[in-house]
């Protein structure tokens, strides 16, 4: 995050990041501490209202509600740590967490490897905008649409996938209908939706690696595989770290696909954390408890993001 706070005078603005330490040698100007503040307030007003009412206040309110007993019918009642105590002993909460982590591991694992491969292929083979466009298409279609397409394709009786399995001599699989396959199925469906987009992000990172590095390695007789492990992967690390942080956070928020296909079942196999919160809040009206689960989810996500950034040293690049 850049923090170039001092831009007050009317001199031509230096590019952020490259601004030299300013020792003002030009003629002294009258200091205008407030600058354009009144105008800025006018321009900011709608966005600031939206931010305060629909981001800041509700975020604080969720934190507050997590300490209350609230069913929407009566005003929230202070309950201290009750919700959190209940959370620790709630078998379904831990199950939701476990199921969500399973989903994230399969989803992110497969997606990242496939996207990396795809990005490297595109980088080495083609600049075709058409191919990039096609690969991005699933990402632009609604989760609900993607879920329904695959729900149809994976149907036990008329789904083309089971038909294909039969052609190669395998038994049909009840993808969404079996406790052991439901989560991997949903994870892979969403890999299909996101892989092209993730590949494009990585592709953008690849384009930032100078060609000369590869040329030098090629004249030294390095193989493609060696170049990938020794050049591409290390130089790509900051981009990969950012992509991983973003996709992991997104992946934890799996809801739409579950809501449209399995609704948490079979049994509790796909009752992911987002869906569990949804049920607690909007079907059982345990708003206080749902808020506590939200807080737990937020803490997990924030911790994960920090951990990832630290482990992957996202800030520093090996290019310098």
């Amino acid at each position, binding site marked *: *995050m850049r*923090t*170039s*706070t001092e831009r007050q005078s009317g001199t*031509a603005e230096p590019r952020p990041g490259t601004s030299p330490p300013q020792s003002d040698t030009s003629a002294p100007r009258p200091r205008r501490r*407030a*600058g*354009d503040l009144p*105008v*800025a307030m006018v*321009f*900011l007003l*709608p*966005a*600031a209202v*939206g*931010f305060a*009412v*629909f*981001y800041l*206040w*509700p975020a604080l309110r*969720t934190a507050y509600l997590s300490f209350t007993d609230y069913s929407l019918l009566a005003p929230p009642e202070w309950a201290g740590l009750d919700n959190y105590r209940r959370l620790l002993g709630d078998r379904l909460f831990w199950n939701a967490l476990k199921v969500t982590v399973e989903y994230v591991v399969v989803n992110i694992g497969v997606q990242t490897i496939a996207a990396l491969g*795809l990005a490297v*292929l*595109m980088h080495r*083979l083609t600049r075709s905008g058409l191919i990039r*466009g096609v*690969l991005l298409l*699933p990402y*632009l*279609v*609604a*989760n*609900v*649409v993607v879920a*329904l*397409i695959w729900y*149809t*394709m994976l*149907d036990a*009786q*008329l789904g083309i996938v089971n038909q294909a399995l039969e*052609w190669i001599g395998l038994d049909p699989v009840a993808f969404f209908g079996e406790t052991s396959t439901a989560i991997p199925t949903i994870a892979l469906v969403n890999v*299909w939706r996101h892989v092209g987009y993730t590949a*494009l*992000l990585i592709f*953008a990172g690849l384009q930032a690696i100078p060609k000369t590095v590869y040329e030098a390695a090629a004249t030294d007789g390095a193989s493609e595989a060696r170049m990938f492990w020794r050049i591409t992967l290390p130089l790509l690390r900051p981009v990969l770290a950012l992509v991983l942080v973003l996709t992991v956070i997104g992946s*934890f*928020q799996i*809801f*739409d696909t579950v*809501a*449209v296909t399995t609704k948490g079942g079979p049994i509790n196999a796909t009752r992911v954390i987002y869906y569990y919160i949804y049920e607690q809040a909007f079907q059982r009206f345990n*708003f206080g408890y749902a*808020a506590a689960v*939200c807080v737990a989810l*937020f803490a997990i996500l*924030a911790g994960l*993001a920090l951990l990832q950034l630290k482990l992957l040293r996202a800030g520093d690049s090996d290019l310098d």
Partner: protein
Amino acid sequence: MSHALRRLSRRRTAAWAILVLFVLITLLPFYWMLRISLSNNRTLFANPGSLMPTDFTFGAFKRVLGIATLAEATAEGGSGANIDFWRYLANSVVTSAVITVCQVFFSAMAAYAFARLRWPGREKVFFVFLTALMIPPIFTALPNFVTVKQLGLLNTYAGIVLPYLFMTPFAVFFLRQFFLNISREVEEAAIVDGAGHAHIFFRLIVPMSSAPIATISLLVYIGAWNEYFWPLLVGQENDVRVLTVALGIFRAQSPQAGPDWSGLMAATLLAALPVIALFTVFGRWIVNSIQFSGIK
């Protein structure tokens, strides 16, 4: 030498084959949706593996669009249940359009304040705006639901659009990046001529940023069109139901025994069509914006 070359080209062929495979896997489900939507639902089960539509018909689309008679519908394996497609389509168009226009306009105003005006605390306020990117939507959804409910806006257009109307951190961030890069000189010439900030914003900054503004509008529109969670919470009723919610309900209501797959896929395809059409026309912008922003 020629041996090495041949090996190289064989490798390239293999690499191309994998890339083409990726493209096929990406496209096949779209084709399959089309194939089933053009099939007769009664004969689907007999030929689940055929690549062409079985017993080609537009019946499923007619059912979805409400222009098939009950007899026609049941003859082709439809449930006869009514899906109010045109209404849901209109609801999606209206809510997405309102969200896009307001959110982009207000976010552009905020971006102008962050990029072109000088005031104390500017970077700090911007940082606070950005932190909202880290908050999972469900974290704010519960109180937002309470707010909308207390305002008496459940099951209204206003309730569906309200949280998205004023800003999203991403839109502000995205536009600020572009506004920062506009040269100061143009602006200063206008100030010398006595132009006010409203003039500079509407006559200089906005027109000079028409491409990024169009891009973010497109992204916001597609995002709003695809949104499921929020309208599911506040807009279940038939009058205001948007397409994503309607599809979910359509699927939940289809009978376990012999569901109307053709109808489901026809409705799904129609719901996805506007996005696919927008993308065909403006795809290049979206691809480029992803290269640029790296997020969303």
